């Protein structure tokens, strides 16, 4: 049932690209990801077939860039900055504390699927370092305590809601 529904959605996205060029690959992948959240092996195979490139090539392309998720991301993506300004303001310790608190490494998702932790090379809010983004909201001048309470708050909100 689900897979039929999914393939209908996929067909709808692919229909927009009547005469797919090799250079459309990035846009198609992005559209697909926006709809499904991530690019599963099955989706990569189908898109590759459609565009006419090998699945290996598509995977090679998608895995090169940080924008594409090849695994299902957490509901909340925490992105910590480790640019120079954040680095000199102890971003390293912050990152280590988040790792310990969530018990995952950068790039991984917690088992309950709630958090994905990422580290970015610079988020461009250097004047207010250290910086952290959770989904679309930017938090500035954070420390481990603030982050922990943010995480706790999200956890609480999600456990009571469900």
């Amino acid at each position, binding site marked *: 049932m689900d897979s039929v529904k999914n393939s209908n959605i996929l067909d709808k996205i692919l229909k927009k690209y009547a005469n797919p060029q*090799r*250079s*459309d*690959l*990035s*846009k198609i992948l*992005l559209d697909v990801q926006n709809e499904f959240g991530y690019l599963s092996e099955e989706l990569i195979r189908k898109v590759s077939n459609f565009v006419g490139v090998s699945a290996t090539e598509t995977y*090679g*392309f998608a895995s*090169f*860039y*940080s*924008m*594409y998720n090849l695994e299902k991301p957490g509901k909340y993506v925490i992105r910590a900055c*480790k*640019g*120079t*300004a954040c*680095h*000199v303001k102890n971003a390293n*310790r912050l990152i280590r504390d988040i790792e310990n608190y969530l018990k995952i490494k950068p790039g991984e998702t917690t088992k309950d699927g709630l958090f994905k932790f990422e580290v*970015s*090379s*610079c*988020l*461009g*809010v*250097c*004047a*207010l*370092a250290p*910086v952290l983004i959770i989904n*679309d*909201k*930017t*938090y*500035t001048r954070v420390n481990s305590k603030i982050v922990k309470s943010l995480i706790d708050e999200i956890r609480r909100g999600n456990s009571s809601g469900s």
Partner: protein
Amino acid sequence: MGRKQPIIVCSNSGCVSSGGIDIFITLYSEIFNNPNLIEKYEVKKGGCHGFCEVGPTVIVGDEKVFYIKVDTAKAKDIINEHLINGKIIERYLFFDFETKKRVPYYDDIPFIKKQERLLLKSSPFVDPEDFVDYMKYDGFKALETVLDKYQPLDVCNMILHSELRGRGGGGFYTGKKWLIQAEQIAQPKYVICNGDEGDPGTFMDKYLMEGDPFRILEGILIAGYATMSNCGIVYLRKEYDLAVKRMENALKILYDKKFLGYSVMGRPFAFDIKIEYGPGAYICGEETALFASIESKRGNPKVKPPFPTERGLFDNPTLINNVETYANIRDIINLGVEEYLKIGTAESKGTKIFTLSGSIKHSGLIEMPFGVTFDSIINDIGGGMQKLKFKAIQVGGASGGIIPISDINEQISFENLAKLDSLLGAGGIVVLDESTCVVEMAKYYIEFAQEESCGFCVPCREGTQKLLKILNKIIDGEGQLDDIEKIRSISSFMFETSLCGLGREAINPVISMLKNFDQELKEHIKDKKCRAGVCPRLVKYVINKESCIGCGACKLICPVNAITGIQGQYHTIDREMCIRCGQCYKICPKEAILRS
């Protein structure tokens, strides 16, 4: 009825992240609901004033009263006390520690006053989402002048004579690029604005695109006309969501107003601009890798020549410039080449936007003419150091150098920084204090280069790994003196044989460390000592029995419970358990914890 007085809420990502939008909404609705106020005031969003540190900010009226760190409660006070009762609220103003006085007006804030702005001059007062507002500040005057008065090649020559150099880091003469692009006959011809900013410690492109999107687009349009190209592309990082939003909005307006499309401003010039998203790889800031990413390929750079102006995107002629370079175009045309040439040094003309951050009192976005010294940026504009003493300046991000205190009076220009074995890069300046270890800093940059290396060419892929290994060894206290020689030979090998700039310039932080901080490096290797106390294996913490008062603060903060002791008696640190994080050292009220 006279003109309404503006109330401007900064709406760039710095201020937005600290709650700027809420303040805008509060002020807007309060004033909207008050018939007396709505006749006198208009609330609008403004671009970046650069002083992000004190955000969110509100600028009131033509006299520009500058309120800092505003929240919704303060916003209501501004309405009641300032707008209704006409009194400036002293306590919400910026406090100048030097004069020990509150500074009421925007133009008098030392951080702003000491700058000489050209590109950022009007940005704080112009709504980045409002076309009409942009037009009030000479908007598209330059484009109109160019379309009506000059032939395309004349414009290229004007830019050539203005001696404008690429602001993305290369410093190539922009006019030369434009002339080559203009000569190309293949179609379509692309004009790309490179906004794939990713250098750690750099954010001027982001703030320019967020704060003044129309200025960038005007620059691109002029470039399109001058080089007789027809297809513009703004390439920016998807992560810069506010910049994406503002650019999309600006493009939509320009199409609606017929400033883009088959007949720009009703003149016989057709030009289109679209947005392409950088999918997130530092290497895509390199132009050939950027093309590859638009073509849906892995971002591997290509060997140059052929240069992009001959064979670029889809093998067609492509002009590619940095965001800040395009931001300059409008002012060169409006000021005239003669006037523009008066700004700057002999070989670097115009102004440069720098991003100032690190252990400095005031950080943010600043603009100064080329030739300004580090000293004046740090001490005059930046207000000096926060707490600890000044140690070094890191300039130019991952491809820049670490400049020591002895060079603080050096001028910043393309020619002078090359002499100091550093690059201007995009203009990121991070000020480092005594608590920074330069060896660790060099490692940080190499680690960055190693992670971001595309892995295509061997010298960069392997070289960065080897360098990182050696630096890690030194930081762990296992360095040997011949490591210095190894670092030198790997670096020179990488410089000579890497395919693109990332590999060639990745060594700059290391080379400048060898040159300027030789002593500190040797201390790490020979004496197994880190004077900044950063490298964990090279520091030890002990509690001085005599001065310890047994308050227990250190015991509480220790993350691994390595400190034991009874309240009121001296405490001890278990050396085996200690992870050398230094938190006890910082918290001790009696300075009883010694670091060696």
